[in-house]
C-alpha cells in the first residue's frame, strides 16, 4: 500500500506557524482571564446589591438582624 503524501513545510512556514500558535494561546489565555475577572466582579456587585436589598426589606418590615461577631 502506498504511503499518503504530505506537504513538506519549509523552516519559514514552521516558524511562522509556531509564532501564530503562541499568539493564539496568548489570546485565549487573555480571554479566559478576562471572563474570569468579569465574572467575579459581576458576582461581587450582584451580592452587594442583594445585601442592600435585603437590608432595605428588613428595615421596612421592622426586622432587627443581629450583627455578626
Amino acid at each position, binding site marked *: 500500500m502506498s504511503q499518503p503524501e504530505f*506537504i513538506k*513545510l519549509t523552516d*519559514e*512556514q514552521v516558524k*511562522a*506557524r509556531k*509564532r*501564530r500558535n*503562541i*499568539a493564539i494561546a496568548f489570546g485565549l489565555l487573555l*480571554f479566559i482571564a*478576562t*471572563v474570569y*475577572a*468579569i465574572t467575579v*466582579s*459581576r458576582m461581587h*456587585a450582584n451580592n452587594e446589591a442583594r445585601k442592600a436589598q435585603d437590608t432595605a426589606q428588613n428595615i421596612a418590615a421592622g426586622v432587627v438582624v443581629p450583627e455578626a461577631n
Partner: protein
Amino acid sequence: MERPPFRFPKGRPSPFMNMTERQAPIVTTAQPEDFFQLLKPRVMSLVVFTAVTGMIAAQGNMPLLNAVVAVICIAVGAGAAGALNMALEGETDALMRRTRGRPVAAGRVRKNDAMSFGVILSVFSVMLLGMTTNWLAGGLLAMTIVYYAGFYTLLLKRRTPQNIVIGGAAGAFPPVIGWAAATGDAPWQAWLLFLIIFLWTPPHSWALALYSAGDYAKAGIPMMPVARGAKSTRLQILLYTLIFVPVAIAPTFVGVGGVIYGVVSITGGLFFLYLALRLWRSRAGDQPDKADAIGREAALYDVRLEAKPARNLFAFSILYLMALFSALLVEQLPIIGV
C-alpha cells in the same frame, strides 16, 4: 469641457470573486503582526478615543475593570469589522497605492483566514461586551460591525458616490456604544456625538479623495471626485462643512460641552470653514494624479501644488476632531475625580 459620466471599469474586482494571483498559499508564512494589521490599528485607536470620550461624558457609575474590558471589546469589534473589510476587499485593495500593502491584498494572509479571524473576533467582542456591560452596548457594537462589513463594504462602497456619507455612520457609533456601556442608555447627547463624527466624515474623506482620485477610479470605486468630478466635490465639501461646524459647536450650548469645548469648537470650526472655502475656490482635484512623463508612478500622498488646499483640509479635519473629543474629555476629568 463636459466630464464623461462615471463607468465601472470592465471586469472590476468583486468581493465575491475568488482571489487567484495574489492569494496566499495554503500553508502561509503569515506572522501574528499580519493579523494585527488586519484590525486596522490606526482606525482602532480613533475608535478607542471616541468610545472612551462617550463613556466618560456619560458620567456613568461603572467599575474600572468593566470600563477597561468594554473599551477593549469595542476596539476589537471595530478591528474585526476592519478584518472583514480587508477580507472582502482584497482584490480592490491590491489596485490602490494606499491599500496594496495590506495583508490580504499583498497575499500574506489568505482571504478565508482573514474572514474567519474577523467573524470570530466579532462574535467574541459582542458577547463579552454584552456580558460585561449591557446588551444595548453589545447590540450597538454588533450593528456597527454588520453595518460596516456588510452594508458599507458589500453594498454601498461600489454602488454610490454617497458611499462615504452613509457608510460614515459606522465610524460614528463608538461614542454611542461607549455611552451605552457606561449607562445602559443612549440618550440624545450620545447621538449628538454620533452626529459630529457622521457629518465630519464627508469633508474629511472627500478632501483625501480629491488628491487620490486616480486610485479610486482604477479600483472602480465611485468616490465623489471620480463619479461627479472635482468641482462638484469641492462644493459638497463646503456645504457639508456649513452643516458640520454648527453641529460641532452645538454641545457648548446644550450642556454637553463647557467653556474649553466652546473655545476649541468655535475657533477650530471657523478655521475649518476657512479651509473649506479656500478648497472650494481652488482647483484641487481638477488634474487627476497619474504616472509622469517617464511612466513613473506618483508616490502615495504626493500632492500637486493645486491640490494643497485639499491636503490642508484633510490634515486639519483630523486635528479638529481630535481636539473636539479631547476638550470633552478634559472637561469631564474633574467630575470623575482624576
